[in-house]
């Protein structure tokens, strides 16, 4: 049966204080409800009992209101709750540490300075009996959770860190009590007690856990910042009246008002007003973006100058911000392949350590010097205590958590651990020209008529023809015609010839518009205009040929400005040893000119959309680990085939699910940042894994006493306890160093 627990509901439609009694009564009437209390100010009800959420919601609805479950819906609330729970646990661990060390430290000082902790007289037996009982009580107070955890795991045929600590400290305490209570059962030289070790180990491990808890909190700062971007309330117009409601009550199609300085609560389209919006928290783009009627606004960004009204299009978990948070959280908990070996080892680790402890004890008993029993107990205990599965288990996830969060802060969304790892190994990067290297907003720069038509007429006809096309070059022609207020006509029999151009009938004229190959295919004489076209191409402009009724009519050149920071960002990629290749459907001369301007020497030009993936495969066949950067929509097959696909977003219009890594802003620096953060994270993971492997691989044999035959050295269980406690803390602290990672200044 489901157990009694607390659930919270959000109540809609409760307009007066008298509703409180009605709702509480309705809920209390449900079978299994022990307590129902409503907070009228917040419109929430807290219910204790074992009734299901569906029954509770049905009861509220029957009473005439609407109810929504609130459990874990509000991310910020969950985080606050988590922080409170962690803080309470931290305080408990510190209290338990203090209790254990209050006993352990004096005992250890005594053992170091006052002499052997052995039993030779009855007085000593009596004193140690009292200390043994006190240690048992301390073990219960400060170490009960280890023993309960170990027992529960054991019953489930699994073993974990609790198992090792409980076995290690339990063995030391039980052996010591045997020495105290039944000294005759133990050889005289082995009548040594280890109460100081028991108390110290428990104290140190509790202290290590407490410090690790604090350090862990810092690894999730990035996701906390993202969650903190969510507005808590929204001003919504309902029935002509503006009301402030909780964010999770906003519905799609609601009209929302946002004043200057306020945060956009949900995604939507502006219906009234204009403003500038700071989107830097999502895109990393520092300049505010101007927004007017019908422009999209995105939850989490800040309205700066004007008051606007907008229609909500995406609410709750569908907003771009919610999806980003979800993606970052998912990626933070995914494992890159490098962590899989550690996972496999972790799953066998504890039983293997237990076996090593038994073997070690047997070896000491069979071959050890006197007192062999005591030495066997010390070595077995030390092996159990020093082994640290946590360091192995934490090594990868902690670094991924910080690395993915750090990337998100820079506007780089990494889909999963595998993408993170592969990005660090990229040797070749293919950049799509339009929209990636260039702004993706081409403009008409030159029109060269052949004499048959005037410039304006050529532009008017070409724009009429291109009205039906979605190609960026087509849009530039239409925009230029609209700027000159030219009357565009409807195109008929429109036909897009993929990768080459378009044709249609406008005003009874058969129009053809595209590249030289298209003209050659249609046997259109270009005279010497190809020379002029080459001159345009050499200036990084894209020349296009225009023909009317089978006769060449003119040349239109379009130029797409190169992004301001593309040259510097490409240099960053090249300096990090990456072979940068440009890919474009544009003609070879224009492509070469653009490539020269940005410092790229390898170019794939005149590539048809369906050939992009082939170019990726060609580089992979050369042994390269290929990254492909495109807009995430037109390049889908190439992005999917590449080892890592990068979708470069413009503003917040991102295809989050379409690529391995999504760059929220248009700058290519995001690409260099993504690779830099991936490399830093992988380096950090390797340091952690190396540390955890070496620690265990060296520590366990040392604890078992391999150095004893040569140097007479046998590790103290107390030192082992300290080493174990701080090994996982070291891993978390090293992962936290990644927070200091800064992408190069740009």
């Amino acid at each position, binding site marked *: *049966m*489901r*157990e009694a*627990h*607390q*659930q919270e509901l959000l109540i809609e439609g409760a307009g007066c204080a008298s509703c409180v009694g009605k709702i509480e009564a309705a809920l209390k009437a449900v079978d299994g409800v022990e307590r129902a209390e409503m907070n009228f100010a917040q419109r929430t009800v807290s219910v204790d009992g074992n009734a*299901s*959420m*569906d029954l509770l919601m049905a009861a509220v609805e029957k009473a005439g209101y609407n109810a929504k479950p609130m*459990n*874990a819906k509000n991310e910020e609330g*969950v985080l606050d*709750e*988590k922080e409170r*729970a*962690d803080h*309470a*646990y931290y305080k*408990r661990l510190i209290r338990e540490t203090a209790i254990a060390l209050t006993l352990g430290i004096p005992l250890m000082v005594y053992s170091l300075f006052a002499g052997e902790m052995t039993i030779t007289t009855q007085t000593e037996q009596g004193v140690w009996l009292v200390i043994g009982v006190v240690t048992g009580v301390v073990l219960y107070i400060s170490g009960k*959770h280890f023993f*309960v*955890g170990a027992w*529960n*795991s*054991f*019953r*489930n*045929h*699994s073993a*974990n*860190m*609790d198992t090792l600590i409980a076995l290690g400290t339990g063995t030391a305490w039980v052996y010591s009590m045997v020495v105290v209570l039944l000294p005759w059962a133990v050889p005289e030289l082995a009548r040594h007690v280890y109460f100081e070790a028991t108390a110290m180990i428990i104290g140190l491990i509790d202290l290590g856990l407490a410090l690790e*808890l604090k350090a*862990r909190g810092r690894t999730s700062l990035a996701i906390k910042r993202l969650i903190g971007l969510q507005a808590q309330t929204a001003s919504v117009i309902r029935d002509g009246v503006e009301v402030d409601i909780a964010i999770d009550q906003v519905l799609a199609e609601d009209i929302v008002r946002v004043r200057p300085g306020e945060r956009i609560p949900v995604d939507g389209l502006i219906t009234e007003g204009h403003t500038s919006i700071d989107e830097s928290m999502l895109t990393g783009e520092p300049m505010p973006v101007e927004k007017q009627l019908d422009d999209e606004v995105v939850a989490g960004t800040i309205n700066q100058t004007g008051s606007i009204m907008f229609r909500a299009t995406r609410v709750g978990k569908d907003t771009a911000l919610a999806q980003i948070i979800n993606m970052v*959280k*998912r990626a*933070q*908990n*995914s*494992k890159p392949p490098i962590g899989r070996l550690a*996972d496999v080892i*972790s*799953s*066998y680790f*504890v*039983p293997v350590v*237990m*076996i090593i402890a*038994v*073997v070690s*004890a*047997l070896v000491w*008993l*069979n071959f050890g010097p006197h007192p062999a029993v005591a030495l066997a107990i010390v070595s077995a205990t030390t092996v159990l205590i020093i082994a640290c*599965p*946590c360091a192995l*288990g*934490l090594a990868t*996830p902690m670094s991924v958590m910080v690395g993915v969060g750090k990337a998100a802060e820079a506007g780089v969304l990494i889909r*999963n651990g595998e993408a993170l790892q592969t990005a660090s190994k990229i040797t070749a990067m293919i950049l799509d020209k339009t929209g990636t290297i260039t702004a993706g907003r081409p403009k008409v720069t030159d029109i060269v008529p052949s004499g048959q038509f005037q410039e304006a007429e050529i532009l008017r006809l070409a724009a009429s023809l291109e009205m039906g096309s979605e190609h960026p070059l087509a849009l530039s022609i239409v925009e230029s015609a609209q700027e000159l207020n030219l009357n565009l006509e409807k195109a008929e029999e429109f036909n897009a010839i993929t990768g080459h151009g378009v044709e249609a009938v406008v005003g009874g004229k058969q129009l053809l518009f595209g590249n030289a190959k298209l003209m050659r295919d249609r046997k259109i004489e270009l005279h010497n205009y190809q020379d002029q076209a080459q001159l345009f191409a050499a200036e990084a402009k894209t020349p296009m040929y225009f023909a009317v009724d089978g006769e060449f009519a003119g040349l239109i050149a379009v130029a797409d400005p190169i992004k301001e920071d593309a040259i510097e960002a490409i240099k960053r990629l090249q300096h990090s040893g990456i072979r940068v290749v440009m890919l474009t459907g544009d003609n070879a001369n224009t492509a070469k000119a653009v490539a020269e301007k940005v410092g790229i020497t390898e170019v794939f030009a005149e590539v048809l959309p369906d050939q992009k993936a082939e170019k990726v495969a060609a580089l992979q066949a050369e042994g390269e680990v290929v990254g492909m950067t495109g807009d995430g929509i037109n390049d889908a097959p190439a992005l999917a085939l590449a080892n890592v696909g990068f979708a470069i977003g413009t503003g917040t219009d991102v295809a989050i699910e379409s690529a391995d890594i999504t760059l929220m802003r248009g700058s290519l620096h995001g690409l260099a940042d993504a690779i830099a953060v991936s490399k830093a994270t992988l380096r950090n993971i390797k340091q952690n894994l190396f540390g955890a492997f070496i620690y265990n691989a060296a520590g366990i044999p040392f604890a078992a006493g391999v150095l004893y035959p040569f140097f007479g050295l046998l590790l103290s269980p107390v030192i082992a306890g300290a080493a174990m406690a701080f090994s996982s803390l070291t891993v978390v602290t090293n992962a936290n160093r990644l927070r200091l990672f800064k992408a190069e200044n740009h």
Partner: protein
Amino acid sequence: MFIINLLGIALIGFIVWWFWLYRSKDAVAVTENLSIRVENGVYQPTRIEIQANQASTLHFLRVDETPCAGQVIFPDLEISEDLPLNKVFSVELPALAPGEYDFHCQMQMYRGVVIAK
């Protein structure tokens, strides 16, 4: 010494059998009223049976303060969720092909398995 050695070897045999060779066949079928308790180092029940090829919901109730217990991860399904303390949290699973799907905490100290049948 012979008996001690024999006992030691028997103990090693027991460890191998108990932790690696033993295969539990008991699995608890998921229902609306079933809560998977996260407490004292384990998920209880540990083996959960669901219907294959249809979406299902698992309800987790975490009463364990340990930070490790605060997260449940289904690595094969790319699902990871933060579990609030002392509150039921529902994890939606997509329709799964027949098979076993592990779930665990971040450090893999807490382990469970969903069996789609």
